[in-house]
């Protein structure tokens, strides 16, 4: 077949966001903006004890309050199917699983009245003794069957203990990371409306299709009854991932009860116990090396917490399975179930806290061996995944390290700590490696050629604000060999069929596969003269078999981060004037949105290094700083110069679009690079995050 390009290829060009104008002019409608006739509002009544039973709710008094239409509670809530998701088994019994868990939902004609009535609803509890205190030596820590999302809990290769006993240099350290909340700008909101025997849920989710499926099972609905629409999302960072968050189930329940559309929007303080957070972690890293810093043994053990509702184990130590070569390698996880809110995915789950442990320990090893930290990592590079032995589809860590060192000006760095005083500041530099899995999941997509000459792509993808819609437009246009202006990509609708969500940095890789394949097919059909009916000609592709048929390889994106810090000698204020990130992420579909993703990731890494901490008061089982004034996310003033670069990373073993995903790798290793730089500046190791003034203040003394 001969094909004639009607347009220059778009992939690789910095197309601005296709929905950008709608967003900046306010035309884009987010979940809580959708106007519906007859809409009423549900408000959560949260548990005020961490554990026990609800023994009474004064429903009558609440029903008598102005504007109140109904109260949902364990005695009138529909019986739900057990779908193995405790956080969605709402109002099924009188148990309180954690502080802030919904004990009732008040439905009223305005949000203000719903809120007032919910806050004045009298609930009697029978409290029970609770434990919300995560400790690395908690007696309740156990070894789970698997860790997130579906990884082995433990890997063990060689004889770590013997190798460490015989190693010339040993580093054995503990690292801690705190609980953190995703804190997307847009809060969670869900609006359910029944019409023509179907229920439509407008909600802010990263996983429209998965959420529709799970709610269908939860409510025992006939297949096809549930539709989830999630057109625009104001950030999620994992917090709007699967499973559905309670607001979605509550909206469906309430709309069913009152027979009107119901919206449930959570306030910022309500997000803290209800929508997930990153667990605190305690990690022990043991490294054994020869005098030149070549690892002979690596052990990474991690502990984290989960709730009583679900076993959710952060895959903290898996970072060490794929990073540096070590003949003797052991990684393991333990988890403890506490009377706390349920932890969930937060940007680069596993890799973000785990890389803090390993990349900090590598810096300590560099110090102990007297080897430059970049050189140390180069010496421990490998072309087969250390834990599994599988070859990498491509691994350009060394290129990232070298290019990063060059851009940052690393050469000639004096490795000695606490030697650079500049007025009130100690100055230092540090670095870390990074990787993130490059996964692809089965997805179905449709593309329709219209008689107008336009093309419509439909796939239940999500654009969290990342630019995914734009990247898919470019991939589709190139596959069709048409200008991007003729392609419209519709996403965020579960009716478009099975699709992976926006999570695990797998969106573009997963959605792009069927989009590109369906577009090729359609282009072929058109080129071979197939007639174009009035409703248009549609090609559909389901990538399940193709994804399953891939070779068994280890697929990862790689990167390297370099940081410069300044630490105030007397106040402990840490500033980061400069961060460099260099990445090997497969094909870069859109350099503009890709760069933005990495800027965002690096900023989140900086924020995680210096600022973010959700403070749990274990006596109450609740987070105390549950608002954006007290939970500090980096502001513009915290962010210095950010330098983002890519190395060429061709890889034919991925997917038809050749992408690895780059949403999360920008955060991985940044906290360690900054902590390592703080040590270089002050001479004091920072093994616990965040490195706020209270921790850094002792450094200068």
């Amino acid at each position, binding site marked *: 077949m001969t094909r004639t390009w009607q347009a220059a290829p778009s992939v690789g060009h910095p197309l601005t966001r296709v929905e950008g104008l709608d967003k900046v002019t306010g035309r884009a409608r987010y979940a809580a903006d959708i106007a519906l006739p007859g809409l009423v509002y549900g408000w959560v009544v*949260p548990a*005020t004890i961490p554990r026990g039973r609800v023994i009474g709710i004064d429903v009558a008094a609440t029903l008598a309050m*102005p504007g109140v239409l109904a109260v949902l509670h364990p005695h009138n809530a529909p019986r739900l199917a057990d779908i193995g998701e405790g956080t969605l088994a709402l109002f099924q019994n009188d148990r309180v699983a954690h*502080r802030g868990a919904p004990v009732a939902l008040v439905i009223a004609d305005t949000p*203000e*009245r719903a*809120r*007032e009535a919910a*806050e004045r609803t009298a609930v009697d509890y029978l409290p029970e003794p609770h434990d919300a205190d995560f400790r690395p030596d908690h007696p309740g820590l156990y070894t789970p069957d698997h860790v997130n999302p579906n990884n082995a809990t433990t890997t063990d290769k060689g004889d770590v203990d013997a190798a460490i006993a015989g190693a010339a240099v040993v580093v054995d350290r503990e690292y801690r990371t705190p609980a953190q909340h995703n804190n997307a700008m847009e809060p969670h909101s869900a609006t359910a409306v029944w019409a023509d025997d179907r229920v439509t849920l407008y909600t802010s989710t990263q996983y429209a299709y998965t959420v529709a499926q799970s709610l269908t099972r939860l409510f025992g609905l006939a297949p096809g009854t549930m539709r989830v629409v999630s057109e625009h999302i104001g950030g999620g960072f994992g917090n709007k991932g699967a499973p559905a968050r309670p607001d979605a189930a509550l909206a469906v329940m309430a709309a069913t009860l009152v027979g009107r559309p119901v919206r449930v929007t959570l*306030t910022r*303080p309500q997000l803290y116990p209800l929508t997930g957070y990153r667990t605190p972690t305690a990690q022990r890293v043991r490294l054994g090396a020869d005098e030149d810093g070549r690892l002979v043994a690596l052990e990474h053990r991690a502990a984290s917490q989960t709730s009583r509702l679900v076993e959710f184990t952060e895959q903290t130590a898996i970072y060490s399975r794929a990073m540096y070569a070590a003949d003797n390698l052991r990684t393991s996880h333990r988890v403890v179930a506490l009377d706390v809110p349920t932890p969930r995915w937060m940007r680069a789950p596993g890799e973000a806290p785990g890389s803090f442990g390993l990349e900090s320990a590598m810096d300590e090893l560099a110090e102990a061996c007297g080897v430059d930290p970049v050189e140390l990592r180069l010496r421990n590079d490998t072309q087969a995944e250390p834990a599994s032995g599988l070859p990498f589809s491509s691994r350009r860590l060394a290129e990232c390290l070298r290019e990063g060192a060059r851009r940052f000006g690393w050469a000639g760095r004096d490795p000695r700590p606490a030697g650079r005083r500049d007025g*009130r500041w100690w100055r230092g530099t540090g670095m870390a490696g990074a990787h993130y899995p490059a996964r692809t999941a089965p997805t179905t997509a449709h593309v329709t050629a219209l008689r107008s000459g336009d093309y419509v792509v439909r796939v239940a993808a999500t654009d969290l604000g990342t630019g995914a819609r734009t990247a898919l437009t470019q991939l589709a246009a190139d596959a069709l060999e048409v200008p991007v202006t003729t392609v419209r990509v519709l996403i965020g609708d579960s009716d478009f069929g099975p699709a992976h969500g926006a999570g695990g940095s797998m969106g573009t890789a997963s959605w792009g596969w069927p989009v590109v394949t369906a577009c090729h097919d359609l282009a072929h059909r058109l080129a071979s003269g197939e007639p174009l009916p009035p409703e248009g000609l549609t090609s559909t592709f389901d990538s399940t078999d193709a994804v399953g048929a891939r070779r068994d390889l280890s697929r990862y994106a790689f990167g390297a981060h370099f940081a410069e810090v300044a630490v105030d000698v*007397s*106040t*402990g*204020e840490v*500033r980061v004037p400069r961060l460099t990130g260099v990445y090997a992420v497969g094909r870069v579909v859109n350099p503009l949105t890709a760069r933005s993703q990495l800027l965002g990731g690096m900023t989140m890494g900086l924020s995680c290094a*210096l*600022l973010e901490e959700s*403070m749990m*008061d274990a*006596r*109450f089982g*609740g987070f*105390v*700083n*549950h*608002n954006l*004034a*007290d939970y*500090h996310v*980096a*502001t*513009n*003033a*915290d962010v210095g110069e950010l330098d983002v670069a890519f190395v060429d990373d061709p890889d034919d073993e991925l997917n038809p679009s050749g992408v690895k995903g780059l949403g999360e790798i920008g955060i991985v290793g940044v906290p360690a690079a900054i902590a390592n730089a703080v040590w270089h500046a002050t001479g004091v190791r920072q093994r616990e995050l965040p490195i*706020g*003034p*209270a921790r850094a*203040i002792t450094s200068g*003394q």
Partner: protein
Amino acid sequence: MREFSYARARDVDAAVSLVADNPGARYLGGGTNLVDLMKLGIERPELLVDVTGLPLDEVVDDGGRLRIGALVRNSDLAAHPLVRERYPVLSQAVLNGASGQLRNVATTGGNLVQRTRCGYFTDPTMPCNKRMPGSGCPAIEGEHHNLAILGASDHCVATHPSDLAVALSALDARVGVQDLAGPHELPLEDLYRPVGDRPDLELTVRDGALLTGVSLPPLPAGTRTGYRKVRERASYAFAIGAVAAVLVVADGMVSDVRIALGAVASHPWRARIAERELRGGPATAEAFEAAAVAELDAARPLRDNAYKVPLTRDLVVAVLTELAR
């Protein structure tokens, strides 16, 4: 959020008559603190009396004293030429607080009587002596890393969040107040009650008294002033340590000094002990440090806020050293 009535005050007398003697009424300034607390259910007024239309929004020179109306917005205050020229410390303190958007609406009066940011105070499901007298103070054993090290009690260890008030304290500001008995003035320091056993009672003035403005005495020629604030992020965060200082040095000797500390107590903390130590003595880093240490001798830090003692000490030294240069 409770439903409430809203009224715009026509003049000062009308405002006072609506709010004084009415425990369910509150003045509404910029609303940046009050409305947040209303949403959280911490404040549940029946009536809001919006005072932003009152003619208390000017900065004027009154025979050498600078008079700042209670409704001057934080941004306008910081930018005012007379403030920048005569009291740079005040301008710096305001600009170190909150964000541009908040400063555009926040008022001088509202800033001085804003409530603490203690996390237990702002969560109605938690005990808190300040919000619910007698319910206990969970912060003492709990999350208190940014709470008080000076002047606290067993009943409350909250801090006052204002930056502006710290600078005003160092400038010996007086506060204009009007209640049903009429207008009067008092030193800013006397506006705040010591914590004692009633942390819910924060002010010395009568309930429903309207703050009408603040006034500042002139500073002698050669006075240098400065503000430095430490916070956990580079911008848009409350202080974990703050120092406002006014210093006059002649021939290497301190002829006058006034120091106020922020983020250490339930109100701006005038460092009188340090001032006494310094007055008439040498203006050296050693003297500054000795004075700061003497002041902080009274500090009673809790488990997680002991870092504030060296932080505040070093900040005092850094600010005074800079001013003495």
